[in-house]
């Protein structure tokens, strides 16, 4: 619980830092991107804080690129 509260507190601080100046300049699209990324980041941090397994992108890259690495290093055996 404390983890979630702490993360939300940080999120509020981030919103307070960024949003007023974005609103003042009227940057709507920027505000949307900011919001989506922040939402995503908050979700990830809470999941990490609660020790939920998060998929590792390096594993996906490994699936795609391991055959290529095998081939490259195999050439030089």
């Amino acid at each position, binding site marked *: 619980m404390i983890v979630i509260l702490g993360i939300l507190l*940080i*999120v509020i601080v*981030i919103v307070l*830092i*960024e949003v007023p100046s*974005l609103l003042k300049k009227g*940057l709507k*699209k*920027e505000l949307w*991107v*900011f919001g989506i*990324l*922040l939402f*995503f*980041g*908050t979700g*990830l*941090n809470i*999941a*990490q804080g609660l020790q939920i397994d*998060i*998929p*590792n*992108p*390096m594993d996906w*890259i*490994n699936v795609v*690129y*391991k055959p*290529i*690495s095998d081939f*490259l*290093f195999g050439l*030089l*055996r």
Partner: protein
Amino acid sequence: MLESGKIDGKQFTVLVFMFTTGSSFLLAPSMLASEAKQDAWLAAILGVVVGVLLAWLYHSLGNLYSDMTLVEYSEKILGKWIGKAISFLFFTFSFLLAALVLRNMGDFITTQFIPETPIKSIHILFLIIVLMGTRLGLETLARSAEFFFPWFIVLFLLLVIFISPQIELEKIQPILEEGINPVLRSSLLIIGFPFLELVLFLMIFPYVNRPKEAGKALLMGTWMGGVVLIVLTALAILVMGADQTTRNLYPSYYLAQKINIGNFFQRIEAIVAIVWFISIFFKLTICFYVSTLSLAQILNLKEYRMLVLPLVMILIVLSLVSSPNIVYLVSVVLYVWPSYALTFGLFLPLLLLGIAAVRRYV
């Protein structure tokens, strides 16, 4: 323009230099020695030669569109949607690299200095200065790199001078014991990390005030950084031998621990740690800056600064997730990285250059 700052050729050289030495300063010797054993220095030289060739490739691509970043001209060359898709993959590449570099730093501090502190808190602390650097922009970053450059050189020379009495030439013999193949395998590793990563500088290229100087600066920086890596690898092999170099994850750090002059001047490994913090700070900040800038350009935003804080939050989690432990880092990440980096560091620039050339002359 998203980034209004301009840097000059010299500052660009220093940034490239810092980026090249970056995390490789500690990791390269053991990575090279793992395959090539006592020939690691040969692999380093070969890697640097290829690295300079790569820098030359980026230089010719960058000069073709000297007022645009990679994201902008890939959109122009490949069309809007394919360009954006490829740019997005490029963004993930630089972002993932930032996470891995951050993780290297965290691993180093938790294994060598403060083993009981959670790695997450170290990441957060380090990210605070990265965040400042990114928000302040390229110009500030380049000027601070210029400021730290002499420190880096002086401390590095101190390390070289004080360890040189312990050099034993027989440690690099026999040369090419198992033929050339292990050397080639090792050089593949160092080409992937750090030289193929230099492609990130195509995002900074247009912000050099004189485009002519940018290419030269890129070559110069790669060359200088490469020499540092060669010297370090050679020293690690010459002083500790291939076996010990392979077994230590951070041979340069152990090298500094071995310094002992008259039983009086010793234990100055903090020097190496400081040098490494300087260079890895710049590498991490450049990676992060490039990811932020490229994301902003892909989405056609008018500003990039508001992306910094949310991306930092994602980066913290990604750095913890992307390499769960050191074994995974060494066995999976280092093995797969060269081919992953080849996609963005070699094929993407070649593709862009090829299509641009065809369009120009047909």
